[in-house]
């Protein structure tokens, strides 16, 4: 039934429209309660659903936060354990080194001290003997001069002068000997000083290490306790490590690409230039496989050296086995590097052959001229072919950091996404609830007249019923509610 036909229910379209409008308003008015309930129920269901989804995502977010926190703390704990372990190893090395030389040092010090004691004893100054002639001279002086006292005194004087001269000579000799002994003590003093200086240095080094260990242990304890401060530091460190390792990996990828360019062309000589596996040339795949094998060997070498810890199985091998692995992986790497150097040389030969052929086909004589400095590029290519496999070995270090930090970074990104999603769902839920209220208001908009009449009627009825409390009614508010 079209609008035009509806307007023809009476001969006057305006009247028809008014009748239809009245009927419509009446219908809406009578269906108002049900419609409000339906709108409320629909919007409430939608809001509840959205809030439920938001709660669910918030739960997932909490799980992810907890997981990320656990991952961060575990990674931080492991890193700190490695640092502390390394510091202890250094302290151990220092102590072992010093303790190994301790008996010798002790002997040296004891010997030096003994020698000094002996020299000191020898160098003790012997006081000059008291003159034994003083009383005799006194007695002789009291004698009568006639009894020959003067001569005696003269003899005594002579003897005393002689004895004094001898005593002085002995004293000087003894002093010279003492000085010589004191001079002999100097090297021993220096030896003691140097030895004690070395000991002091070692002790200071150990003290410094112990301070560093204390600091690391404090940080380790904060990590073990799971403090927010530690988590925050670990999180920011992890992001920094992620970007740095990604940068280094990008550089390594560029190196691998150059390596690939060096060996892809000569590979065509070995496996054919036109064979394809899927959409890729077999020669390219072969070159790529060689590079991948080199990187794998590099990983195993780094694992065997315990520089990285990507494969726990290798780390837990016995030392003998690890040494074997180191030798084997290094030998394979050496072979690969030699092969690459050969392929790089072959590449240059092929390139020259191709240039010569193209020059011949272009009837260009300049292309076939031999460049006398060609050996430089050939040697450079061979050198790069040999060195790049070893350089790629070190990819293992940023790779390990990248893998470890990737877990955290992915977790952080996931947290951010979930948080945003939860917020959006919550906003949508609230929006749906308010949308229901708005829809009810919009529904009531065409019904303003019957609602107003209803409110007036209700007010009048209430006033009639509560005559003493007239004037307290709030018809509009009730009608709106």
């Amino acid at each position, binding site marked *: 039934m079209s609008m035009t036909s509806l307007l023809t229910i009476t001969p006057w379209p305006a009247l028809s429209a008014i009748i239809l409008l009245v009927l419509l308003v009446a219908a809406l008015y009578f269906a108002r309660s049900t419609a409000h309930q339906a709108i409320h129920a629909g919007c409430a269901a939608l809001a509840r659903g959205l809030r439920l989804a938001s709660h669910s995502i918030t739960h997932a977010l909490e799980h992810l936060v907890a997981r990320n926190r656990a991952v961060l703390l575990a990674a931080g704990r492991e890193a700190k354990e490695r640092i502390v372990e390394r510091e202890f190893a250094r302290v151990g090395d220092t102590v072992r080194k010093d303790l190994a030389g301790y008996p010798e040092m002790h002997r040296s010090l004891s010997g030096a001290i003994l020698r000094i004691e002996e020299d000191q004893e020898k160098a003790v100054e012997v006081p000059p003997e008291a003159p034994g002639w003083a009383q005799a001279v006194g007695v002789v002086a009291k004698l009568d001069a006639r009894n020959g006292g003067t001569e005696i005194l003269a003899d005594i004087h002579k003897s005393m002068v002689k004895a004094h001269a001898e005593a002085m000579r002995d004293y000087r000799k003894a002093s010279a000997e003492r000085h010589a002994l004191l001079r002999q003590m100097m090297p021993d003093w220096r030896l003691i000083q140097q030895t004690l200086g070395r000991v002091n240095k070692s002790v200071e080094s150990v003290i410094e290490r112990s301070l560093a260990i204390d600091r690391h242990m404090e940080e380790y304890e904060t990590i073990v306790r799971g403090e927010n401060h530690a988590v925050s530091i670990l999180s920011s460190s992890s992001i920094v490590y992620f970007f740095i390792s990604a940068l280094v990996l990008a550089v390594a990828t560029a190196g691998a690409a150059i390596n690939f360019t060096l060996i892809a*062309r000569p590979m065509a*000589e070995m496996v054919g*230039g*036109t064979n*394809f*596996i*899927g959409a890729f040339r077999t020669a390219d795949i072969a070159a790529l496989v060689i590079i991948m094998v080199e990187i794998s060997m590099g990983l195993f070498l780094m694992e065997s050296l315990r520089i990285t810890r990507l494969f726990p199985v290798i780390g837990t091998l016995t030392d003998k086995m690890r040494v074997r692995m180191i030798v084997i992986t290094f030998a394979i790497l050496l072979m690969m590097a030699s092969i690459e150097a050969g392929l790089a040389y072959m590449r240059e030969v092929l390139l020259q052959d*191709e240039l010569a052929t193209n020059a*011949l086909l272009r009837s260009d004589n300049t292309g076939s001229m031999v460049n006398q400095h060609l050996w430089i590029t050939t040697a450079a290519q061979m050198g790069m072919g040999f060195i790049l496999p070893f350089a790629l070995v070190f990819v293992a270090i940023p790779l390990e950091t990248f893998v470890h930090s990737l877990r955290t970074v992915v977790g952080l990104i996931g947290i951010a996404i979930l948080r945003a999603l939860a917020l959006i769902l919550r906003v949508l839920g609230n929006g749906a609830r308010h949308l229901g209220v708005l829809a009810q208001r919009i529904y009531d908009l065409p019904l303003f007249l019957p609602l107003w009449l209803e409110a007036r009627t209700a007010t009048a009825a209430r006033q009639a019923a509560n005559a003493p409390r007239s004037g307290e009614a709030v018809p509009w508010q009730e009608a709106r509610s």
Partner: protein
Amino acid sequence: MKRRVFLLTLTLAISACVPPSAHNTGVYLLVDTSGSYNRQVSKAEQIILFALSRLQSSDSIAVARIDTASFTEKNIIAKATFDDRPSTANQQKRAFAGRVESFVDQATPAPYTDITGGLLQAIEFLNEKQTARKEILIFSDMKEDLAKGYVRDIPLDFRGFDVVALNVTKLRSDNFDPRLYLARLEEWRVRVEQSGGHWRVVNDLDRLDGLL
């Protein structure tokens, strides 16, 4: 887990065992040696050497002359399918260039011009080689002049072929009436394209970059 590994291995094995699609190119170069065009043969050498420089390992090339009766293997001056190894392919190219050079030196003019026969021979050769890309280069004025008794009013199947007319020179009669030249080219274009091929004309031999 085992099932996943098995499926992965199976997928890789299947992808490795699928017969590889051809990526090579086949070039058949027809050189007109008829009386009016024989002087241009030296220019053909330039085209042949250019084509050789562009071809790679596993590509095929043949050079044949157009004379009175072109639908025969005897007209093929040199042919080669380059080796898989680039170094051997280079040696083959040098040998091929030598054969072409001796042909150019000894080329003798033919009384008639059997272009259709040459094209039939080219189609047969390239179809046998089963190359992914098939190019027929015609170094001619495209004026067919058949000897009495030669039937060449036969359908040609150019599906999958690129036919390039090179150095299509103008005849003296074309100078009197250029419509003859245009009609001749149009006739060949229609013939090639109606047979499913792709037609192109390159007259500027200094601009061969788009070729091959």
